[in-house]
């Protein structure tokens, strides 16, 4: 007990005390986050109780209590957007998990050249969703785009008979498709880490017990990689719930409002209609939703990890 105390004193003589250093080092980061994240957040909470509209900012700030919140929560359109968003999140994450996990299983067989091909597969997720999303509009053009052309080559459907971004029945699947193209590698990478974390001797023991490959998968591989899969789902679900850039450029919410994710609704309310009070309330509702869902999920994740 006296030993560390002595050395702490000695250190203070030679320079700043550890405690001072700790605070000096942490403080700038906290200060920056307070200024850029927390202060605006608090301000936004305040504004969410007002009827502020930036296109009529000459009006005095009027407090309307919970009106914005009741407006939003009783608005059928908002519920539709939330449903659209939920469907997008569920389908894209599900597809990414299936494809990502499958790819990870295959890559884990360590065939020759696997690290080169893995790097190739990883490329889409590193690119800017906006820049790439914009380019997908060319790839998906009904007449001139290579996507429809390839589909017609394989199925015989005339390439101009369908529009991936312009058709109500297809557009929601298009954003799922492009998102999966970008992010399946993400799930793959995390699952691969999971697969590699399983020690060989477990499989060796299973082999000695003559467990079939199928059985090995269900009772060893899947349960042992579950925490990794769940982590990937958590990150992807949060990211896709926030999704704005790719969809804004690919379909900008259209046709009609079939792909209008809630972020796009928010952008329209805040930066096109300039309904700042209303959009602040919506933003807070979204934040509470993500934060709450993520917290519940993390608890579940920790339970799975402990098993």
């Amino acid at each position: 007990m006296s030993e560390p105390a002595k050395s702490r004193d000695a250190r203070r003589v030679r320079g700043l005390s550890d405690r001072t250093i700790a605070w000096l080092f942490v403080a700038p980061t906290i200060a920056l986050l307070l200024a850029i994240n927390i202060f605006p957040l608090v301000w936004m909470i305040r504004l969410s109780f007002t009827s502020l509209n930036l296109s009529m900012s000459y009006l005095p700030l009027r407090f309307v209590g919970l009106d914005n919140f009741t407006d939003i929560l009783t608005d059928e359109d908002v519920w539709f957007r939330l449903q659209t968003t939920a469907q997008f999140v569920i389908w894209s994450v599900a597809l990414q998990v299936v494809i990502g996990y499958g790819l990870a299983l295959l890559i884990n067989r360590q065939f020759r050249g696997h690290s080169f091909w893995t790097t190739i597969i990883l490329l889409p997720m590193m690119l800017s969703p906006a820049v790439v999303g914009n380019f997908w509009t060319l790839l998906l053009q009904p007449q001139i785009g290579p996507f429809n052309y390839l589909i017609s080559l394989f199925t015989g459907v005339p390439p101009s008979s369908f529009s991936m971004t312009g058709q109500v029945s297809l557009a929601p699947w298009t954003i799922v498709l492009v998102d999966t193209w970008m992010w399946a590698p993400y799930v793959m990478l995390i699952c691969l880490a999971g697969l590699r974390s399983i020690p060989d001797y477990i499989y060796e023991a299973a082999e000695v017990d003559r467990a079939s490959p199928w059985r090995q998968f269900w009772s060893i591989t899947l349960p042992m990689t579950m925490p990794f899969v769940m982590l990937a789902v958590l990150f992807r679900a949060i990211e896709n719930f926030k999704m704005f850039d790719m969809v804004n450029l690919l379909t900008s919410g259209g046709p009609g409002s079939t792909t209008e994710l809630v972020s796009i609704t928010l952008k329209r309310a805040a930066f096109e209609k300039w309904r700042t009070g209303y959009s602040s309330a919506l933003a807070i509702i979204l934040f509470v939703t993500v934060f709450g869902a993520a917290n519940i999920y993390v608890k579940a994740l920790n339970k799975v990890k402990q098993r």
Partner: protein
Amino acid sequence: MTAVLTKSTAHSIVEASPRAKAVAGGLVILYAVITILPLLWIVATAFKSQSDAIAYPPKVIFQPTLEGYVNLFTVRTRQTPDFIAKLPPPETWYDKLVRQRDMVIAGPSKVVPRFVNSLIIGFGSTFLAVFLGTLAAYAFSRFRIPLADDLLFFILSTRMMPPVAVAIPIYLMYRQLNLTDTRLGMILLYTAVNVSLAVWLLKGFIDEIPREYEEAALVDGYTRLQALRKVVLPQAVTGIAATAIFCLIFSWNEYAFAVLLTSGEAQTMPPFIPFIIGEGGQDWPAVAAATTLFVVPIVLFTVLLRKHLLRGITFGAVRK
């Protein structure tokens, strides 16, 4: 040969059979080829002429031209053939190329300033985030900080907000502070977003450096700061570099804040590229050229980062 044989027999139980490997390899390569096709199409489109880019059926074989790149960097005006005939002969190859289309270069386009914005904002915010992040990560890793876990979670939770939601109050705040559409404003904002990643990643990297090294240095008469500079930082260099690249990629690719908070002065590439228009809609070869130039650095970084990719994308939650 013998080494390979002994290896495969030693692991025969868990290692996949050659056939299973071949099947796996085939499927993965097929997926990789499909996934890379859109990117190859972008690179190819950049070398097409306007009419080839929007031809039906889509052209795989075409006469390559640098028109897309020339159009990206210039502003052109259409002239009558008579007018062009009267001009002195073209001075450069790109003048010549443009005149073949009955056009004359009127000046440089905005792409260079936008690219410069992307560079300044990207590197500026990366430097700040890594600097602040290293200090904070070191403190979290080495000192007992009250409520450390809560603080770390708070730092991370700032990432959970949808960017559009964050942009609303930032927009109002920046309007008051005259920071809208300024590089400084964007640097501060991206630093705030990146610092959470930097703290989490760097804490993981610094945690892995044994404390004994520093303690030895302290015993030798170094102060804490000297020990940090001369012992810890040199060992954390790879981690810091990897973190920096992740921050840079985020700032480079970011679109939501950029499109909502900048319009001219400080606009970066992502909101600019979709608005590269020619006569009648997007000038696809020029868009493709811009996309290629924009994406190439990221591809290089991805290859460099391969080993640390997993850590970076999971905020250090998964390490290998």
